[in-house]
């Protein structure tokens, strides 16, 4: 039962990760990777006794052995079939990542205002830059999957934004493979220079019957006055397990608008850790979590106000139907000295089925008194007063209900400034809701 015992007798999964580690050739990042791996091995996989893993059971996963996912040839994937998020809309570029390996065309390295490089190549040419974004693991680090990613990623994307960019950049992550029990550790580093701005959409899809376990990490560093609108959209298959984390480090007066949208996948664990580490940094986080069929969605947001006058807004909408389970676990930490921090969380859950479940944990940890922090969370059914109002105007029940479901999601959708992405997300989302036909009419 105890955590100690679980780690001492390492699970099959942990042993297989260790084997991967031992088979890796040393690179310039080795010391940081070594620390991360040792720390991971010390911690092992999380159990439900771990407060941030309370609602997600990884025992089935832990009992499996994993091998490195194939470095698939580009010809083996059909991005067109799944590449619907931006449709024909203008974009800066579409970058393809297959099982964590970027396939960069030579001309893509030189988009105006952005440098795009493979992490593997950079680790040979310019490891010092990468090391700026790979902090050594500390004894307090509990982020097991991020540690594992740091130790084991084989390649990835490094994006340096140097100027304000208008058109969005799409990163299409494809998980693919036909052998069972593969694992990939995709890594993306977004380095936004002072005063730059960009929109980056990460779209995660899966192909094939045995998509690998994905343990992805995106590290975002926003320098002074940088602005970023970042999307991560999970649209993988019902068999897929995806563990993803986004870390955001925000410097003075930077602004980040982050959208987490879960529309697919069997088990999706999506973590957001934002550190508002300099004065005036500001974050708007939006989560749209759709539980459908047997999906398990576990979303964790940890926002740390580490400096004065930092601001955060979190808006989460969770819908659970069928046998799904949706978890929204958010924590706002205000450090001592972060005076005039301003934080709001709004989380609403809508349960549409007697066999579904929504778990919500809107947490506050406040160590400063000169702050404004509030949160509100509700879970339940559609508001009966709203429903009655619409019925009393002659709308039929199904229409009224669909309208309310749609309105429920609107708070997140209306925040999206990339209209093509927004409408693609709406389309995908509606198809997973009851009365999809009716909902389409409202658009």
């Amino acid at each position, binding site marked *: 039962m105890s955590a100690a015992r679980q780690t001492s007798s390492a699970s099959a999964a942990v042993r297989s990760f260790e084997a991967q580690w031992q088979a890796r050739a040393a690179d310039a990042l080795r010391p940081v990777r070594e620390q991360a791996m040792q720390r991971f091995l010390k911690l092992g996989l999380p159990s439900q006794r771990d407060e941030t893993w309370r609602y997600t059971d990884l025992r089935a996963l832990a009992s499996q052995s994993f091998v490195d996912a194939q470095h698939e040839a580009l010809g083996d994937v059909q991005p067109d079939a799944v590449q619907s998020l931006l449709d024909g809309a203008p974009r800066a570029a579409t970058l393809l990542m297959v099982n964590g390996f970027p396939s960069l065309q030579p001309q893509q390295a030189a988009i105006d205002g952005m440098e795009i490089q493979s992490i593997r190549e950079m680790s040979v040419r310019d490891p010092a830059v990468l090391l700026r974004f790979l902090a050594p693991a500390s004894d307090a680090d509990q982020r097991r999957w991020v540690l594992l990613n740091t130790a084991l990623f084989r390649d990835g994307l490094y994006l340096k934004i140097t100027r304000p960019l208008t058109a969005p950049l799409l990163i299409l992550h494809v998980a693919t493979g036909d052998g069972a029990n593969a694992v990939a550790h995709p890594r993306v580093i977004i380095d936004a220079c002072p005063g730059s701005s960009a929109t980056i959409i990460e779209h995660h899809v899966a192909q094939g019957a045995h998509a690998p376990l994905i343990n992805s990490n995106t590290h975002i560093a926003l320098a002074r006055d940088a602005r970023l609108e970042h999307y991560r959209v999970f649209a993988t298959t019902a068999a897929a397990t995806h563990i993803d984390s986004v870390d955001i480090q925000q410097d003075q007066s930077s602004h980040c608008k982050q959208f987490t949208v879960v529309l697919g996948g069997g088990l999706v664990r999506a973590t957001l850790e934002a550190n508002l580490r300099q004065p005036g940094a500001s974050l708007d986080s939006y989560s749209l979590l759709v539980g459908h069929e047997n999906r398990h969605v576990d979303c964790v947001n940890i926002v740390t106000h580490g400096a004065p006058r930092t601001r955060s807004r979190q808006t989460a909408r969770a819908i659970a139907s069928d046998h799904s389970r949706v978890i929204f676990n958010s924590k706002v930490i205000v450090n001592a000295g972060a005076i005039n921090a301003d934080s709001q969380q709004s989380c609403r859950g809508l*349960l549409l089925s007697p066999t579904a479940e929504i778990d919500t944990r809107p947490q506050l940890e406040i160590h400063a*008194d000169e702050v404004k922090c509030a949160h509100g*969370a509700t*879970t339940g059914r559609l508001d009966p007063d709203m429903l009655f109002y619409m019925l009393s105007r002659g709308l039929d029940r199904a229409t009224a209900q669909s309208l309310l479901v749609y309105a429920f999601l609107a708070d997140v959708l209306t925040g999206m400034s990339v209209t093509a992405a927004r409408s693609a997300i709406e389309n995908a989302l509606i198809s997973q809701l009851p009365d999809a036909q009716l909902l389409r009419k409202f658009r």
Partner: protein
Amino acid sequence: MSSKSQDVEALVGQKYRHGFITDIESDSLPPGLDEDVVAAISKKKLEPQFLLDWRLKAFRHWQTMQEPTWAHVRYKPIDYQDISYYSAPKSPANAPKSLDEVDPKLLETYEKLGIPLHERARLAGVAVDAVFDSVSVATTFKDKLSKAGVIFCSFSDAVRDHPRLVERYLGSVVPTTDNFFAALNSAVFSDGSFVYVPPGVRCPMELSTYFRINAAKTGQFERTLIIADEGASVSYLEGCTAPMRDENQLHAAVVELVALDRAQIKYSTVQNWYPGDENGLGGIYNFVTKRGECRGRDSKISWTQVETGSAITWKYPSCILKGENSIGEFYSVAVANNYQQADTGTKMIHIGRNTRSTIVSKGISAGHAENTYRGLVKILPSAAGARNFTQCDSLLMGSKCAANTFPYMEVKNPTATVEHEASTSKIGEDQLFYCLQRGISAEDAVNMIVSGFCKVVFKELPMEFAVEAQNLLSVSLEGAVG
């Protein structure tokens, strides 16, 4: 800004008022814990076999358990072999038959505490059971209550006089295996209070127990069991104090409430265990399991607590809402000053249809204290139409304290509604200035603002306690605004 704050800081100089030690001969077991100690406690109390077996079962399970670590509190490891598990005032007679036989020093102690065991009790109209260290020393108004059919006595008396009721209900809400501290309590509990209200009876007066830890190096492990039979109702108050000692003392109580059909139980606590000094030395570890079960339909259990004392508080008075239409309530004011740590809240487990719960938590942090609200609202698939409303507000006084809100909302029924609201604030300089400008002293202004913040909870307290709670609050917040 700072000059005003300093005024406020300077104004409250009151110290812990209940920190005296009573010089009284006590009969204690030496420190240490094994099966023999468990058996010795049972033997001293002349218990029937079933209870000894029950204790031993709990003890054996406890030995397999690990002390929990999930709470947001930090303390040095407790050496469970360095605690005396039994300490009773040595009376000339085995047990006092009436107040006249109670050791006069003890009565004096309760006088000092302002707890009316004598004449004043009659005036106040509150029946009191006083527990000194581990043993119930006096219960007032027994006769008047028994005329109404209400049983209100020490737990030991209940074991002797009503063994069948005890056997039936003991551990039926908090099983011996429930958690580390509940298991420990089940093994070694020494005394406590017992209440049974028969069907259809409204208990004619408020019932009250005052707990006092006196002896050094003792733990207090009392057990309270309250049963309201069908259609019965009772209001029960609990107060606690302890002397000032440099070492930490452990208090691990278990309270079980059972409400049958249409029964109502109101349980109020004013907890003022010694909190340690301003440097965090000494104080009580208050690790308590309190749980009520609305077993019958239309029943109601309401917890109200004002928590100002203890070095560490770790308690979650909970309601299991099994009966259809049953209601659970939790109203709490938790104050943590200096180096106090509080991790407190509630659990509302909705099982029955149309069950309702309300949670109102007001946390006040000052000094270097850490105050955590932790609350679980769980709606099971069977709880159609269940509703919960939770409101958690934190007030921070000073920049070195912390306030945490850790709610858990687990909803498995689509017809249920669960709502949670939380806010964090401080006493505004403008509020303070407004009061000062109107000629109100800073001390009064802070008290006014704080009691305004806590008002919704205080109004749930019985009259007798509301005033005491208000006073405690201002004492606890000494030097708090900075």
